[in-house]
Structure formats: C-alpha cells, structure tokens
C-alpha cells in the first residue's frame, strides 16, 4: 500500500513537471505580447521593448523556464504582470472564495443528487422516478449562464431575498452554488439511479430480500455500497473541476474566485498568474484523484493496491 502511494506520488510529481513545461511553452508560443497588453494601444515600440525587458521576456525560452523553476522551488511563482504583485499572493487571495463555493456546491451535489438518484431507482417507473429525472434533465440542459441570470432576476431583483453578486457572507453563496451545482447534481442523480438499477437487479439483492432484511438495509448497505463506486470517481473529478474555478458562474455573480482570474490572465497574457493557477489546479486534481482511488479500498474491500 505505502509502496503504491509512493509510486503514485512520484507519478504526480512527473505530471506536474510535465504540466509546467507544457503551460510555460504554450503561453510563450501563443501569439500576443504581454507588454503590449499591459500598455495602452498607442504606446510606442520603445516602451513595449523596455517593458518586455523588465518582465524578463527578452531571454531565451529555456532560460526563462529554468529561472521560473528555480524560483518555484523557493515558493516564488513570479510577479504578476497585470496585478504588479506576487502571482502566488494574487492567486491565494482568491482561493478561499473558490473553496467555499466548491464546498457549498459539493454539499448540494451529494446531498441532493445521490438521494434523487436513490429515490428514482427504488421507486423505478413511478411518478417519483419521472419527477426526479425531469429535474435531472433540466439541471443538465439549462445553460449555466442563463440559469444564473434567471436566479439573480428572480431572487435578487424581483423578490430581493438574496444579494445579486459579490461575496460577503453565506447569503452570497446560495445563488452561485445553486447555479454551479445544477449540472453535476443532475449528472450524479442519473449516475446513482442507473448504477442502483443495475445492482438492484442482481442475485445477491434478491437473496438479501428473501432472507428478510428490511428494505432500507438492502438498499443502503448492500445495493448502494456497490453502486456508489463510479459515483465516487465522478465526485472526485468534480471536486477537481470545481476547485480549478467556475468561469461562467464566477463572472455572472462577480465571484472573487480563481476561475475568472485565470481567463482574464490568459486574455491579458499574464503568464505568472496563468502558470500559478494551472500548476496549483493540476496539483489539486492529481491529489484528489489519488484520494478517490484510495477511498475505493475503504468502500470496496475487493479493491486492494500494492
């Protein structure tokens, strides 16, 4: 087991170096000059060249990468071009808002998605099933952008129950997390339902029922435990996605997270910020996946590593 974890961690480190090289190179071969994006449109060429020099972009690519790598090991991700401040600080300032939103959305995804799926499977081909699936289809097909604006107009502008944008307390979390969770909740509900339907059909469930176990025990202890594995994988992937930021939700709700930050940074060619966010989110992704894989062993005793 510990050998397995060590091997996975080694792979994770390799992945991160690969990601950093890829990000570094792609950013720099992409058309567009950071200095030109920083300066106003009519700035003279001499000013552009001077700023390029100040930003260290006049050096050869390999030299730039080595300087970058060297400072990353000292915890320095470079100076943001457009924020004129350390990139790591710019990113970390916004990480907590993203984490809060991720937690709120995850609570909705697990707390609403799994029960809907369970109910739909157990009450297969009843109005409960149909109602659950209508909600799921809606959740999967309403575009995020539209849903967010509709929620704002309804609960923010018309009813005035909830604030329309920003983040200054839990009330601000409600609408963005609903918007963000809509799609994955629906997805999880459908996944739970189909997994459960498959399992509920199997012999050992019939055995459990025939030996007189109560319905809830059969469903939760026997069936769900088997059906939940793919759901766990997807939830793990969702956490990764959510933690790397939700661009559309963040821009609709003016949410101070890292999703919008990275898109703005890409458009303005703020290389240090893009690098920091991508490397951090790659690291998160790799770790969360590793954790999800380890969780399987807890849920399913048949799965053993190493």
């Amino acid at each position, binding site marked *: 087991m510990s050998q397995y974890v060590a091997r996975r961690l080694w792979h994770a480190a390799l992945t991160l170096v690969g990601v950093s090289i890829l990000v570094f190179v792609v950013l720099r071969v992409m058309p*567009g000059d950071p200095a030109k*994006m920083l300066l*106003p*449109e009519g*700035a003279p060429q001499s000013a552009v060249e001077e*700023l390029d020099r100040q930003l260290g972009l006049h050096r050869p690519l390999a030299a730039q990468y080595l300087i970058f790598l060297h400072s990353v090991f000292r915890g320095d991700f470079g100076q943001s071009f457009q924020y004129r401040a350390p990139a790591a600080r*710019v990113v970390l300032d916004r990480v907590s808002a993203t984490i809060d939103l991720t937690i709120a959305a995850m609570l909705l995804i697990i707390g609403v998605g799994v029960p809907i799926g369970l109910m739909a499977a157990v009450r297969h081909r009843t109005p409960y099933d149909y109602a659950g699936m209508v909600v799921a289809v809606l959740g999967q097909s309403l575009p995020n952008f539209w849903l967010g604006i509709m929620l*704002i107009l309804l609960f923010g502008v018309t009813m005035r129950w909830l604030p*329309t944008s920003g983040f200054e307390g839990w009330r601000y979390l409600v609408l963005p997390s609903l918007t963000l969770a809509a799609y994955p909740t629906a997805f999880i509900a459908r996944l739970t339902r189909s997994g459960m339907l498959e399992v509920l059909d199997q012999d050992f469930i019939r055995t459990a029922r025939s030996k007189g176990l109560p319905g809830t025990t059969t469903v939760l202890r026997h069936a769900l435990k088997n059906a939940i594995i793919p759901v766990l994988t997807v939830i793990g992937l969702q956490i990764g996605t959510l933690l790397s930021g939700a661009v559309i939700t963040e821009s609709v709700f003016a949410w*101070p997270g890292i999703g919008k930050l990275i898109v703005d940074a890409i458009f303005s060619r703020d290389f240090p910020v893009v690098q920091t966010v991508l490397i951090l989110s790659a690291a998160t992704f790799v770790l969360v996946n590793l954790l999800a894989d380890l969780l399987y062993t807890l849920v399913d005793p048949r799965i053993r590593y190493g």
Partner: protein
Amino acid sequence: MNTPKRAQRLSRRQFLATSGGLLGTALSLPSLAAVAGGAASRSGQIVAAVSERALTLDPADHYSISTTSMLRHVFDPLIDVTNDSRFVPALAESWEAQNDTTWRFTLRKGVTFHDGSPFNADSVVYTLRRVRDDSRLIKSFVYQDLDAIEPDGEHAVTVTSKRPFGSLPSHLTMLGILPAGAAGKEESFFQKPIGTGPFRLTEWTRGEKAELSANPDYWKPGVPKAEKVIFRFVPEVSTRAAGLRAGEFQVIDRVPPDMVQTLRASPGVRVMSGLGLEVQQWLFQLAKDPDKDLRLRQAISLGIDRDAIIKDLLLGFARPAVCPIPPGLVGHTDLGVKPHDPDRARALLKEAGYRGEPLDFVLMKDLYPKQLEVTQAVQAMLGEIGVVINIKNMEIATAREMRSAGRYDMFYSGWAHLPHDPDWYFGQWFTKSGAARLNRYNNPTVEQLIQEARVPDPKVRQRKYEDLQRILWNAEEPTIWPYYTVAIYGVRSNIRNYQARSDYYVLLSDVSTG
C-alpha cells in the same frame, strides 16, 4: 439621445471651478464657497459598480479608466478636467507655459495628505521624477520628454521638456500626486496608500472592491458629500445591471444601448448619457494592396450607411463623426459627415480595378459593444457595392498581433481620447515610427503638423489640428471614423448631482444620496 455636452447642467463643483478656475480666484469667493460648504450635511454611502477591474493602487502604473476613477477619490492630480474638457485647478492653483518647453505650476497652500503631512513642491517633484525615471511604470513612456523638474520655492514647480509638451497639463489630470515620504519605500506605501484626495482608502480587495471613507479635512469646502463610497469591479454587464435594479449599486457605467430600455423601465433607476470622448476607427492597412488605393478606400467609405448603423444597431447612442477629434477637445472642427453614395462607390471601384478580392476585416473579440453586428452590417452594405468582406473575430492579443504583422485589410478599433487631448492619438497613429506597427501611415507633411501642434498655445494647436485633419478627412481617408460613441450610465434615482462623464470616469466626490 445625443445630449450635447454643453447643454448638461453644471454641477456646483464645476460652477465654482469655472468662476474661480483658471484665474486662480477661487479663494476670493469665500461667501460662495461657504454656501457650498456645510460639512455637517455629509452622509450616506454610494456603491458604484464599474466595468474594469482595478488591479493596482499606483496612479502611475496603469491606464485603466475604472482605476483612474477610483484612485481620483484617494489622490488629487495637479489639474482636473471638467466634463466639457476644460482644465481647472486641483492641487495646482494655476499654471502657465513660460515658453514652448517650460511649464510652471503654482501649488495650492494649506493642503495635507491623509496622514497630516503637508503637500508641497517636494510631493510634485517626487511624483513627476518617479514616473519619468522608473521605466517599470506603465505611464513612464508618456513622461520621457520631461527634462528638469525643479521646485521653485515651497509652492511652485518648474518643468522643462526636451521638446514642446503642450499636452502636459492634460496628462497631469491622470496622475495622482504622492507624498514625498513614499520615496524609496513604494512597495510598502502602496499596501496602504495615502493621498490628498476627498476620500481615504479604508479597504481594498485587489480586483474586486475598494472602500473609501470621507476625508473630513479635504481642502475643497463641502466636498465630499457622501460619508462612504464603495467601488465594486464587475466586468459582466448583466451583473452590474441586476445589482443596480436590486438597489445594491447606485451607479453603474458602460451600459450598452440595448439595455437602456430595460433600465428605464425599472423602478428607481435612471439612465444618463452624454457624448463620449471616443471615436470609432476602422483602419486600413495602408501598405497593402488593394487597401493602398485611395479610390478603394473612398468607395468603401461611400458604401457605408452610418445613419442606418447608428439608428438600427446602436439605437441612436452614437453621433456621425465630422472629423477624427471628438467634440470638446482642442482641434475639433466640422468637416462634414461622410456621405452614403453606393453609385459613386461602384464607379470608384471600377476605376480602381477592384475585382472582388476578399478583404479581411479583423475584430478584437468582444471589445466594443455590438461590434460584430456593426461589422456584419458593414459587410452587407459593402456587398451591395461589390466589395467582399471576410470577418475575422479574433481574441484580443491575437488580433493585435495580426495588426502588428500587417495581416489585415481593415481593423475594427476605437480610440478614447484620454487624457482629453489628441496629441497622443496622432503622434502614435499618424507618424511613420508610430504607425509602422499599426496602419502603416506615412506622410511627412502631416507628421510636421503633428510636431507643430505640440506647442502649448491652444490657438496654434487648433489651427494645426484643423489643417492635418483636413488632409486626413478629405484627401487621404486612411481610416474610416464612422461615429463618436455615447457614454451611458445607470443611476439610482435617489442619487443627486451625478454627471454622465464623456471620459467614462465615475466621479462621486460631489455626488450625494438622498
């Protein structure tokens, strides 16, 4: 809809500044100032949601309009500019050009920074030398022409330049003055910056929010009117509009024309607008075939129905251009709206020998409201006269790279004439060195006129700009300037004395909430 700016109501501040103004007699009107005073009446909080993110607190290190707006409340510049582009005293009581390359500024006495330290010549000398000498600063390139910056006693500063710098006062409207004490420790200073402005910065979340509270010791009597001002940076326009309608924001900027109806129909919301300092410009790549042929450019200009675009797509929120410089600025003159004449356009195309080669019209994606629809309309109009337009809607940095490389026939762009002066624009787009990576314009006569227009004398400047615009507008048509844009704001109806600024600034020192 195109409210002429002159017709807008003068604010009390403008009135005071006008009557006192350039003559430096504001202090001789104590009774009026006292009437305008009454600091006791200060109350309330105003939240403004603006379209760009303020990323820095350093007045010398950005050219963002939203950041300029926010920082204007914390720092005072030497000179302010009114909504009809007149330059009025701020920290400089008066200024004069002693000759073509020397400006002298007389400074206001008795002004203090937020920490109580005095404002004086040292502050100005430090601020100006810093922006000239520190080439990391975004505004540095503008001040490279400055030569000597010297104090002249405690309350005057003399600035000489390497060549005539008539636009210096206008640039200074965008440069907040720092305390000399910040020298050498800028990094920690900008963690919690202080200025002499009407508000102190109390809280700042980079790129999200700035909270300002009234400076009770502000040198201008009766200002500010509100106890607290909050700037929120909200790039998404539907979010700004929703916040305004919900009453969370009192002022929003950059309202697109097609949102005006919705806002007008919302209870408690007013729409305010005024002609902007911005002219749209559709460039030709002048070193490229067939764009270098004057007849082709004239034909394209004649093929475009500007009125239809303004009426149908911009819902009237624009005004056909009559010269490249927008109204209100030095050099504006009426050279007549460009006509729409498809028949003559077709004849010119025939003369030019144009045979349907497709022309690439490059756009910077999502930069200007309605730009894609406008370009599609232009494409259809030009299709009528037989010109084939190929629209390329590119991500901004890529589009600008294509422009540098000259890989375009037409390029959709706009120019906001900040800081209320056309020198920057012409110096960049219509000189050989500046235009080499833009539109490839090159005419020594025009370049000469641009040089001559750099003197401080506004009469000379006006004449030179009229001469050079006549060449551009009538003889060469190197660019199509279709219309001036209207600046539109949404304001809650309890907000008093708000001005819809032509320069897109959101200024709240004289604004009160009732």
